[in-house]
């Protein structure tokens, strides 16, 4: 798990990451101590333990959480004190396992208590459809509940979607160069690098200059119309490693824009532009050659193509960043706050209920001190509430309230 992607200070190439790595086992983090990135992290920001959370949310949240609360808080405080102005926290974890989902969401709550006005962005992986752990549905649901309650923005990513993207790339026989390149790649690394690309594009406004700057905190202002609907669907384009195009022209830029809307380029298995999805908020971040006229035409096309509520149709956030990602001339990231997000939540809820109705595996959770029986029901209720609010918006009929009538000057209410 890591905090803001930026680095502390550059003194003769001595860079330290503003990151805190938490894991309840040591093997993954050990790689950082030996690999090429070893200088980036020092021991104060690494928190490990043995023997792991055993794929158990309760273990991570209720046991390790209070146990490591002070250690984690001090390392966060140390990192925060080195910042001129704290912009936001970026949390990354998976919701399927024990440490990520349990301890991760515990830290999320800690951050909310200690830094209430700082935005908390969560990029989390949902293993829906590709679960490799039997207790995964419990972990997923419990983590989702915490996310709904405490995060300011959540960008969920589904493993299936990432897998599909990677597979599609592997079958991409565009040119010999790309094929050679793909042959060398490892699938898991590629899946991670897609998320990395998402993060790079998301933070591009904070790192480079641009004529329409988008900072991280602006995204939560623009994308979260109501406090509990903070799940955002992300789409990326281009997804290829590097483009062989010399320069981007108007057609290519348009192609990139259309791709970001496509189902195949979404990091979630939902159809953003489909007939059932009603969009509450949109952000388009163009990097590289995009300019304001392009963006204006795209807005118009998007507004024709998709469904909006009566108030969200004109509401769109646009960012322009001058610097494209390495190997490309132009790239685009789209974020949508859409009602079709409820499919993901429904999925989480139904999986939870399937297990919980038979009370399977619940004893692993109940034996952890601090974990109560009602947690499961509460969690299901919160998720259903969230689904219901999406449905409410879908079924909301436009109503026009008459505007205020002007009154004689200087009437104060």
């Amino acid at each position, binding site marked *: 798990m890591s905090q803001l992607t930026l680095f502390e200070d550059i003194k003769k190439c001595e860079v330290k990451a503003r990151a805190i790595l938490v894991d309840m086992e040591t093997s993954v983090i050990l790689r950082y101590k030996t690999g090429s990135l070893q200088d980036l992290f020092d021991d104060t920001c690494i928190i490990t333990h043995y023997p792991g959370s055993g794929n158990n949310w309760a273990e991570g949240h209720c046991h390790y959480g209070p146990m490591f609360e002070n250690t984690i808080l001090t390392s966060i405080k140390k990192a925060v004190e080195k910042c001129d102005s704290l912009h936001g926290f970026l949390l990354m974890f998976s919701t399927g396992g024990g440490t990520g989902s349990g301890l991760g969401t515990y830290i999320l709550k800690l951050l909310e208590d200690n830094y209430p006005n700082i935005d908390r962005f969560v990029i989390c992986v949902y293993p829906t459809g590709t679960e490799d752990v039997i207790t995964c549905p419990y972990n997923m649901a419990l983590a989702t509940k915490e996310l709904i309650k405490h995060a300011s923005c959540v960008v969920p990513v589904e493993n299936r979607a990432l897998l599909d993207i990677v597979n599609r790339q592997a079958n991409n026989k565009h040119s010999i160069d790309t094929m050679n390149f793909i042959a060398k790649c490892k699938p898991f690394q590629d899946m991670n690098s897609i998320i990395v690309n998402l993060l790079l594009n998301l933070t591009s406004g904070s790192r480079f200059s641009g004529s329409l*700057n988008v900072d991280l905190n602006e995204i*939560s*202002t623009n994308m979260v119309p109501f406090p509990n609907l903070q799940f955002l669907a992300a789409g990326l384009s281009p997804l290829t490693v590097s483009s062989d195009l010399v320069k981007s022209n108007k057609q290519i830029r348009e192609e990139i824009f259309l791709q970001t809307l496509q189902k195949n380029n979404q990091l979630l298995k939902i159809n953003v532009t489909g007939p059932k999805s009603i969009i509450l908020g949109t952000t388009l971040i163009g990097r590289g050659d995009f300019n304001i006229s392009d963006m204006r035409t795209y807005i118009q096309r998007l507004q024709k193509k998709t469904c909006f509520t009566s108030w969200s149709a*004109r509401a769109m956030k*646009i960012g322009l960043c001058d610097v494209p990602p390495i190997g490309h001339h132009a790239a685009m990231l789209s974020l949508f706050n859409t009602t079709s997000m409820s499919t993901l939540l429904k999925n989480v809820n139904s999986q939870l209920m399937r297990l919980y109705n038979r009370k399977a595996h619940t004893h692993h959770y109940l034996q952890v001190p601090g974990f109560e029986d009602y947690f499961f029901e509460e969690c299901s209720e919160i998720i259903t509430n969230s689904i219901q609010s999406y449905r409410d918006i879908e079924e909301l009929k436009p109503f026009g309230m008459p505007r205020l*009538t002007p009154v004689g000057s200087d009437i104060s*209410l």
Partner: protein
Amino acid sequence: MSNITLQFGQCGNQVGQALYNCIYEDIKSKTDSCISNKRLNNEYVKESQNLWFNVKQSGLEARSLLIDTELKVTHQAINKPYKFKNVISGSYGGSANNWAFGYTSRSLLVARDVMERLRHEIEKCDFITCLLNILSSSGGTGSGVGSRIIELIREEYPSKFITNVIVLPFQKGDIVTQNYNTILTLSKLYDVTDNTILFENDKIFEITRKLTIDREARLSDLNQVIAQQLASIAQPLIDVPFSQMVSQVATHPSYNFIQIRSAPHLNMAHLNYEMISNWTILTNQVFKSSKTDILMNPRLCKKIRYIGNVVVTRGNMSGNEIDLKRFKEKSMYVSWVPETERVVHYGQQRGMLNYQRFISLLTNSNSICNSLDCIVEDAWNLFTHGAYLHHYKKYGVDDEYFLEAFQKMENIINDYKNIEKIAEAIPSKSIFDIRSTISKYQCMAQRSMAETCSATASSTSEAPIDMWIELMKQILTKDNHNIISRMLKYIALFDYRTEKQINLEDCYMVLSDLTKGDPSKQLEGKTAQFFHECLTKLARSVKEDNHSKKEVFLDSLEPANLSTTRTYRSKVDRNGILSDTNLNPCKVPANLLIDRK
């Protein structure tokens, strides 16, 4: 004479830098086409330098403050032939497109520094004509921090002439909360500053698109057009300072929004191949462009009505070459503007930039209605759905704050819409007559109020709602008086709307009964629905206050009771209710319950 500019936020800084570039180029432009007289040119250059720059031996220093909450844009101000010395920015991470965040929180970071630097800058000048604030109303820093700082400046310098240059967002905008931010900014600054020059992004974009046929328009092109228009009116003219010219078009305190139209706008690269147009053609172009808006939305205003126009020409003009007959037509002006003030012409023999002739028009008319109305419409739509409000509430800008801003904007739009009617309200008497009449009526009103509301406090306002609030405050204990008065505010908002189906009087009656804890009256159809709406709204806002006592109180007001139970009292005659202390525990005076039609 000097102008000091304050540039706020990303847009403000970009436009500000474009403005200074434009002025610098204008000072340095040496093509023969626009300079006919050498002595004249030297004077102009000297005056212009003094107007915008601190002239030092080492070079020019812009009389400007660059204010931002992040570093990226202000960093671009470094490599210029002149210097920006006052950069007040830090990597605070922006204002999150949130007016409330900028206004209440971010402004604290820069406020002291800005005031200090501004004082330094003012002390360097012999005489200040104008403080020019450049900002966009859509973002967070420009709008929020800008509003706060401008308020502070007004407190510190109550008599300085302050003009805002506000860039209004695209209608299909690039920020979701832009319309909220815009209404909050405009309503805040409307009374604080002397007047406001508005630029509409949509309109500037149209101009820019024609300039850049060979490529796509960029934001920097937009900024350049704005800069040119600004420079064309703010560069020195003979014998008339900028501030005087601007106040000439904003003669009435309710009409402070000024727009600029200008011609020609040509692509600099194609300048040599363009036909040189004469003054008549240019005048016609400007005249047409000043009238186009009105046709777009006939619902608001059917005909153009000017309050004032100032025409500025830059370029060689011999004798009476310019014909302003089209501008002088009486029917286009509001009737109360005297004939001599309708259109004023100022000429400067030197051209601007590389243009041989450049004409610009400062205009104040009802054509601004359309864009303001669209902004309020969109913001109201967001507001009634409750979207994005929690971001603002976090920083203390709540529903009532918004409602006040909405009310202010509606008033402004209404003033412009009914521009003719204001004339009727202006009496044709001397100021002393008016004053004495006003005081006379005030006395009378106060006296009659004191008589009718002897049971309650006397209030100078005639609106029944104010009396209700006063009454409720008296009756209820300190803990919960807030609730009822707030409830009344919600009802009052509807009071001002002319909705016939809602019987507000009944609402007041029920409320007064409720304070006793005994709902008596059944409300009908729309009134009941409206009353419930008010209650739920109130309940929501009280819940957010997290005040347990209030919640208990609210629970006792369960709306279910209202619609289902007894109806027996609905036909009791009104005087009966009033006199019965059981039914009227608050001693509501009769005049509050009597039909106000």
